[in-house]
């Protein structure tokens, strides 16, 4: 049977089209516009072609070196927090109760950090870590650890990483918990019958069944940490020096601090492109895993 052709249906999409155009496409196009021009103020613009992009991608220039330095910081940060949060989230999910009132209690406690606004999270840790009045900073210094995130790079990094782990491990744990809950009891019973050890149950049943939620958790955590701005900005402001200046912080400095619109626009576009490509890679991997899953259940 042929489908009915009804071009009027496009009208239903029109509102979304308009909203997206004004909220995303047009602003993006102005950024594209800035990225190919230079200005000396007075609202006078000059054509600069791909000049800013060339400079951005050339590490020997000032712009390029700042971009690459912050890019590596961002990638290192994402790698570290993924390496901590994913295993930690799995461990937390595995040790959560399966039934009873404790489930609700655990879920609420886990959800708390997720509900706090990001700049508040930054403020909490900023105060918490201060050597003079912060509980953490004061205690550490009293115990003889010379901890000061304002002056010491390693302390600053440690603070930001611990803060992110505190803030976001819950998300991974909740996703893993959902994955674990969806495993039918029969699997555990069969594993008991088969004499499987705790470790064998984990590797043969739980980990494979959590594969999909772990991919989602990995994607979310990677994107969020790669785009992180508020918390490190509040806690360290990018310092000491440039040691915690991530791409987003660098971008704000260039765009609003120096008012170099062209440079900032070029940086935004490249930043955006990196995120899009990473998303696409994750999406492809995930839909492949999904197709795999569908093929299996489809036959069952």
């Amino acid at each position, binding site marked *: 049977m042929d489908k009915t052709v009804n071009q009027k249906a496009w009208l239903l999409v029109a509102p979304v089209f308009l909203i997206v155009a004004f909220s995303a496409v047009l602003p993006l196009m102005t950024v594209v516009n800035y990225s190919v021009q230079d200005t000396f103020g007075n609202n006078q613009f000059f054509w600069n072609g791909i000049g800013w992009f060339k400079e951005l991608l050339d590490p020997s220039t000032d712009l390029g070196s700042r971009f690459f330095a912050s890019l590596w910081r961002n990638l290192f940060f994402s790698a570290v927090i993924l390496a901590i949060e994913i295993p930690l989230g799995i461990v937390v999910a595995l040790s959560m109760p399966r039934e009873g009132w404790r489930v609700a209690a655990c879920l609420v406690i886990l959800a708390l950090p997720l509900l706090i606004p990001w700049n508040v999270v930054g403020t909490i840790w900023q105060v918490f870590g201060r050597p003079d009045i912060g509980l953490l900073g004061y205690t550490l210094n009293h115990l003889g650890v010379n901890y000061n995130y304002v002056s010491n790079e390693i302390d600053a990094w440690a603070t930001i990483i611990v803060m992110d782990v505190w803030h976001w491990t819950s998300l991974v744990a909740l996703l893993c918990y959902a994955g674990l809950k969806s495993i039918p009891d*029969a699997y555990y019973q*069969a594993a*008991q*019958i*088969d004499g499987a050890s705790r470790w064998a149950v984990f590797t043969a049943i739980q980990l494979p069944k959590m594969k999909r939620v772990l991919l989602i958790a990995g994607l979310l955590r990677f994107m969020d940490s790669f785009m992180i701005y508020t918390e490190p900005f509040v806690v360290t402001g990018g310092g000491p020096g440039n040691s915690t200046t991530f791409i987003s912080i660098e971008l704000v400095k260039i765009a609003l601090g120096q008012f170099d619109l062209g440079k900032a626009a070029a940086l935004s576009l490249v930043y955006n492109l990196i995120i899009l490509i990473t998303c696409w890679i994750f999406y492809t991997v995930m839909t492949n895993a999904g197709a795999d899953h569908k093929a*299996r259940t489809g036959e*069952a």
Partner: protein
Amino acid sequence: MARIDLVDLAKSYSGEAADVDSYALKPLSMTWRQGGAYALLGPSGCGKTTLLNMISGIVAPSRGKILFDGVDITARSTQARNIAQVFQFPVIYDTMTVAENLAFPLKNRGVPRPQIDARVAEIGRLLDLTPHLDRKATRLTADAKQKISLGRGLVRSDVSAVLFDEPLTVIDPHLKWELRSKLKALHKALDLTMIYVTHDQTEALTFADTVVVMHDGRVVQSGTPEELFNRPAHTFVGYFIGSPGMNVLPAAVSGREARLDGGVITLDRSYPALPAGATIEIGVRPEFVEVAAPRPDLLTARIERIDDLGRARFARLRIGELRLAARVSGALPADGDSVGLVFDPAHVHVYADSRLVEGVA
């Protein structure tokens, strides 16, 4: 391989203090002999899976003991019981190949590699899985997955028993026959005690030497398929087994006669010891009631319809308010006809409060 004794075993999901009538499994004592092929047959919710899970240790009994070869193992964990169980829905380990799936129970118990390989090859051959042994166990059909589950249940040669919990539910009908006869063959080949839970009488009767019929948390009869068919110990067994089920009709029994609403049936035996006040019924399978031309000395019934089952034809009849079924062997009477019924006295049983009463010859 072991003899399994259940001693006063019971399970209540609402605590031991609850009324015994509310128990999922009422106190039960029985023995499963080594090497037997048993079927636990009963409708959904009769406690058969509970009983099975208590034997394997997945469910802890509320009271009673389980003995394997005389050793009390009630307190032991599933892992320590050395028992195999196959579940209703296939359980496979996705990340492993078919062979690794089959080897898993052996590997976990530290069986030496050459022995594992030999055993996996043997089970693979018995279940026709040999061509698939090296592929990943994902993306197989439900049938193939369940074969793997069956294989994992059968792969250990030293198990006390292999328990099957409705293992063929997800299997296509034409493959059911094949797998069932395969299981029967495996039972002979491997000499394992097997307990097979099902609500399908065909499955139970074809698989088992001994069928244990459960009803409402109790074992109502245990015997060979023939015994269950010819001498149902409980009216429930009578109508649960057989298609159509046994006719159960209220009657008054005196001497060698049973008096029904519509007339009198002659009995083979007399029943002098019927308990007073009990509900007395007679039970007779449709196979042993023949439709004949009406005669004054026969019970008269009216035909409602005739079911042609292919191998036999059964008439659905009414005697007043009573309904029953009877075999039609001769010419086909029309719906609405009045016919006479010829009972085979040897197969008319008397039940008091649903339980079989032994007659005196």
